[in-house]
């Protein structure tokens, strides 16, 4: 198995790595960079727990080869809060305050998918939230609370927020 030299930009920092070319981004984030906030559950792209953002869009990192994520901006859950102990992202605060987590294993993926969605659709309906997040599964069945967390971070304009 040949090793490939790759350079990844994760949470604003550059990392030079030597990994097998078949290494997935999820494996590299966790094993090479020690960023275990990204979880691997089904490892088949069905559950969304491994979701990270690449150039602002949600991506299944367990289904993405690390070498294909070069020259892109990768955001993991570790990079979401302000650096150096700064404030949490509003979604993270919402999940903490409104019981958005039970076992927590889906949470990283949920928050990142939600962030990407709200960045594009700041004022969604509940149905739109549920549809957009339907690729992220929660084995604790916490969907109602998770949806409420996401909606609570939507812009509070008049229409569209049902």
């Amino acid at each position, binding site marked *: 198995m040949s090793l490939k030299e790759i350079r990844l930009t994760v949470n604003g920092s550059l990392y030079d790595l030597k990994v097998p*070319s*078949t290494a997935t981004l999820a494996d590299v984030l966790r094993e090479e960079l020690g960023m275990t906030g990204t979880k691997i559950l089904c490892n*088949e*792209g*069905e559950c969304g727990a491994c979701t990270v953002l690449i150039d602002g869009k949600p991506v299944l990192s367990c*289904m993405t080869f690390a070498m*294909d994520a070069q020259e892109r901006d990768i955001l993991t859950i570790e990079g979401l809060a302000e650096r150096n102990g700064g404030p949490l992202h509003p979604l993270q605060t919402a999940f903490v305050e409104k019981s958005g987590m039970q076992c927590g294993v889906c949470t990283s993926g949920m928050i990142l998918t939600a962030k990407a969605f709200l960045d594009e659709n700041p004022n969604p309906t509940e149905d739109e939230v549920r549809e957009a997040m*339907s*690729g992220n599964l929660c084995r604790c069945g916490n969907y109602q609370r998770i949806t409420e967390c996401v909606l609570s971070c939507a812009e509070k304009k008049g229409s569209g927020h049902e």
Partner: protein
Amino acid sequence: MPSEILAPTSLHEAVALCARYKEKARIMGGGTDLVVQIKKNAVDAEVVISLEHVPEIDFISHEESGLNIGAMTAVSAIEKSSMIGSRCSILSEAAAQLANPLIRRKATIGGNLCNASPAADLAPALLALGARLRILNGDGERVVDIEDFFIGPGKTVLAPGDILTRIIIPDPAPHAKGVYLKNKRSLGADLAIIGVAVLTTMHEKTIEDIRIGLGAVAPTPIRARETENRLKGRVLTESVLKEVCVKTSGEACCISDVRCTAEYRDKLIGIYVKRAIMQSAGMANEDPRR
């Protein structure tokens, strides 16, 4: 087990690599099927040739031949494309029902076709639309009708060294209306138990033209041509539909699998084809996703 992922950055380079490795390579689109197989150690190839960075085959355009969609176009792009939505919304509907939003961002139309699952979500709609597939290799190009493309479960006419580059959809009749219905076990992401795509052109109450693509009910996605011929030119009524659609399962060849028994699939065919025709002809008001 592939030892390397090769990532050509041009179609020319990709063709050369595919010609060099031939059957020793598997070609990757979005990888949503292939990467799963790699993880299960079920891929017998030396290398994977990923088309992820080949820009020439990621596009949606309209040309004289009709809609042209590059094989590496993401399913989510097809779902959201206003060009496709305004010209053949049946394909938008099919794309919207493939798996879930995260998978759709990665999956490609080329990958869905070349993986050749009998249940491939985009196939029934493309069959109904009479799509043509352009295939490139080191010796040149050829075009294959989609109806001739699938030859068995997971098998297509693609030979080692071939790359599917684009899907060409001749413009449907201006007032043709299409619907894609998918029965599955849950409201969430799942493979089709049965997928039905119907494209209907009505002249008042008469069926001027009708095209029916079926998925997950035969070794490959199929056109239900006998049903089409029984309906063309007839006045569309519920009783005509009932009479004709009950025979559609005769064109299929259902099997039992983890998702469904053959007997239940057989029963679903007539119901879903009838439902799809009624919706496309504007006779019913159901949300096609339910």
